[in-house]
């Protein structure tokens, strides 16, 4: 461990918090229809969008109408993306397929379309060997925007339900999406992508560079419109890399500075939404309480991960490597990590990407030490409540908040209420279902994939070997897809490699279909439950807080909330975690 490593971590926390507070006020203004500095620029395109989409933004929707619009919009997005990826060779006339790639097979496309639609961005393909520039732009980049917007508007709808003083309206879905894109995602991504290019990310439509190096060794360097996709990939907590090695690739993440910058960008909206929540429900302290909960759990994860990675791995030590810090060398477990990021920059990135639903990686999670690798597992086990994906994180933790209020109410023997609204049996049933769907999908799919030979085919035994790591790979794959995260123990390939330079990836059908199904189910079922809770709360009358009201904006509640999150996660996942990463973390044994 080094001083600059710890500095990186603590400066990061300070920078994110300092940026998220004003951004939270901005987000609250955007969704409350108040004036913002972008109004002069965006008012006109906004009106234009409503006109050609035939939307009446003044038409308010109840939760069922909101959900219906959301599902149909998502379905349209899925179909369009599927179509674009399956026909990508037909679009070569645009000049955006310089490498002459064919279309990937149907199972890979099913998995990929589901993956980008659900903000998961799990990738059973290698970007630079499979996707044309046309697919990357018109297909994947577009869904990066759409899926991020859908996540955010669900959180906004839930906030409106909680804050509503009367009636059943949650706002208008299409209006919320349009405003999310125009006021937040598009202008921010634009600035971010230019910052990235200024630091060394590429942005072009060239043929890959083929040449002979100074040693006359033939080489090829992949090209493409990288920065524009990288920006929204991080900002929207999508995480699907332009290249196979994602944010480890120098063209996606060229320097130590861009690494820090990209980490801030990932956490920006999830953190700001928490402050926006406090503002929109009329009590900033509610936002601070949730933010503290998230930050405590986040810091715990970072500290454990950094210490574990700085220590080095049993395989390194067995090979005779010395992993202490020395002058000119960072030491530690640098296996699967880049020199320019070092240990702290990789451990911090890894925790950020697994607490949010981002899933972009700048290092190989598969090569993390047992305990260092148990951290992303634990983060995923918390089901996206530690910041989480854009929007997803906020509506997920609000479900846990309601559960904590309910449990707290039981303990003190009072009718549970949150912000003056009584939490009844109906809400708690919806909350419980919403919370349990993701873990159950993950465990069910892991069991199926471990027990069947079709599932085990995805384990790359030539690299991974056997033992706990093979189970970890499988478990992580379905945990990641069910949580809509998208990071991977990447030895769990799901594809048999590429054929030639142009045939795309050859997927393993079982893994593609099961994973695709898990992503869709574990994304949309919790969204429906969250919207149902919003609808249910929206109609409730507010009663003034009395002496017996349990406060939800103080330290006691933060502790209770952390306890509930850990309890649910641990009860669900502990047996499975023991079989994989923890066993490896507790032993120096090699398998």
């Amino acid at each position, binding site marked *: 461990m080094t001083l600059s490593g710890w500095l990186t971590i603590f400066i990061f926390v300070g920078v994110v918090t300092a940026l998220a507070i004003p951004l939270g006020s901005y987000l609250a203004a955007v969704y409350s229809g108040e004036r913002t500095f972008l109004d002069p620029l965006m008012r006109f395109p906004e009106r234009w969008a409503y006109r050609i989409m035939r939307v009446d933004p003044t038409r308010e929707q109840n939760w069922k109408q909101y959900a219906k619009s959301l599902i149909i919009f998502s379905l349209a997005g899925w179909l369009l993306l599927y179509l674009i990826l399956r026909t990508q060779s037909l679009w070569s006339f645009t000049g955006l397929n310089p490498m002459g790639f064919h279309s990937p097979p149907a199972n890979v496309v099913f998995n990929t379309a589901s993956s980008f639609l659900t903000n998961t961005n799990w990738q059973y393909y290698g970007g630079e060997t499979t996707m044309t520039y046309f697919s990357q732009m018109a297909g994947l980049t577009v869904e990066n925007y759409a899926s991020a917007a859908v996540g955010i508007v669900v959180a906004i709808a839930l906030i409106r339900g909680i804050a509503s003083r009367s009636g059943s309206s949650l706002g208008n879905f299409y209006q919320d999406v349009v405003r999310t894109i125009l006021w937040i995602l598009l202008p921010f991504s634009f600035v971010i992508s230019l910052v990235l290019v200024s630091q060394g990310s590429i942005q072009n439509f060239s043929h890959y560079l083929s040449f002979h190096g100074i040693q006359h060794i033939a080489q090829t360097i992949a090209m493409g419109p990288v920065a524009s996709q990288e920006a929204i990939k991080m900002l929207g907590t999508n995480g699907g890399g332009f290249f196979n090695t994602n944010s480890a690739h120098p063209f996606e993440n060229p320097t130590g500075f861009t690494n820090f910058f990209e980490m801030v960008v990932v956490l920006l909206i999830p953190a700001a939404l928490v402050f926006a929540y406090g503002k929109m429900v009329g009590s900033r302290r509610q936002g601070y309480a949730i933010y503290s909960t998230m930050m405590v759990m986040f810091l715990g994860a970072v500290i454990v991960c950094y210490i574990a990675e700085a220590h080095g791995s049993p395989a390194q030590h067995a090979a*005779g490597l010395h992993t202490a810090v020395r002058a000119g060398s960072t030491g530690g477990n640098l296996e699967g990590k880049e020199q320019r990021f070092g240990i702290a920059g990789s451990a911090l990135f890894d925790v950020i990407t697994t607490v949010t639903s981002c899933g972009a990686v700048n290092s190989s999670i598969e090569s993390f030490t047992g305990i260092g690798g148990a951290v992303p597992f634990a983060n995923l086990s918390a089901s996206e409540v530690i910041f989480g994906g854009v929007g997803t994180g906020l509506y997920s933790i609000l479900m846990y908040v309601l559960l904590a209020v309910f449990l707290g109410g039981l303990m003190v023997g009072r009718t549970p209420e949150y912000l003056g609204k009584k939490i009844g049996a109906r809400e708690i049933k919806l909350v419980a279902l919403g919370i349990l769907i993701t873990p159950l999908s993950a465990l069910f799919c892991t069991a199926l994939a471990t027990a069947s030979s079709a599932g085990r085919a995805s384990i790359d035994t030539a690299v991974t070997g056997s033992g706990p790591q093979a189970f970890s790979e499988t478990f992580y794959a379905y945990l990641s897809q069910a949580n809509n995260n998208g990071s991977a123990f990447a030895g769990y390939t799901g594809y048999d490699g590429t054929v030639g330079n142009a045939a795309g990836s050859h997927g393993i059908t079982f893994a593609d279909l099961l994973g695709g199904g898990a992503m869709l189910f574990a994304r949309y079922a919790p969204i429906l439950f969250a919207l149902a809770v919003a609808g249910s709360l929206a109609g409730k009358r507010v009663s003034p807080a009395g002496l017996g009201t349990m406060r939800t904006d103080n330290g006691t509640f933060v502790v209770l909330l952390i306890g509930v999150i850990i309890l649910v996660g641990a009860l669900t996942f502990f047996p499975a975690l023991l079989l994989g990463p923890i066993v490896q973390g507790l032993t120096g044994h090699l398998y």
Partner: protein
Amino acid sequence: MRKDIITSAIGMLVLTLVCGFAYPLLVTGISQVAFHGNANGQQVFVDGKLVGSKIIGQSFGNQPQYFQTRPSGTDPADNDAATSFANYGPNSVITEKAIAANIKEYIALNGKYYPGGLRAADVPVDAADTSASGVDPDISVLNADIQAYRIAAVRHLRLTTVHSLISKYTSGRGLGFSGEPGVDVLELNLALNRLRADK
């Protein structure tokens, strides 16, 4: 229902035009003008011929007169057309063997030039562990300093000359704290070649 379908279909098409075409094209246009070198991958030319990108690592085939990049998990090594992680597990026998082989290769290349000889414990982690991208352009300063003895001997240069080149092509931490210093191998090797041409 019908209204939702029409709105969603039009919405996705508009979104595709705006975010899928207008946005990346605008970013490309501005980047190509304002950051032409970066946007095209910081290509390096020698005598008018393309020899690489400053920020993409390439293989120097274990030739003793060149600084060597980090071990790579791609096939073949340093293949930017199909990047991949090595995915070596932390408690795996396969990982141990791979790291041990990298250590052996590093000692075979540098051991006889290093004063007092190299032991496994002297090998810097970045020289034995595979990089993430498979095309890591940088090596650690310690790694470069160890290889400097070999370069100086093979190229008949003074050690201080090699060291001053190393510090010239070392980039520091981002903002002074983020990440680790790294020595750009391609730039360093090209500078060595220019040195010979100047003589």
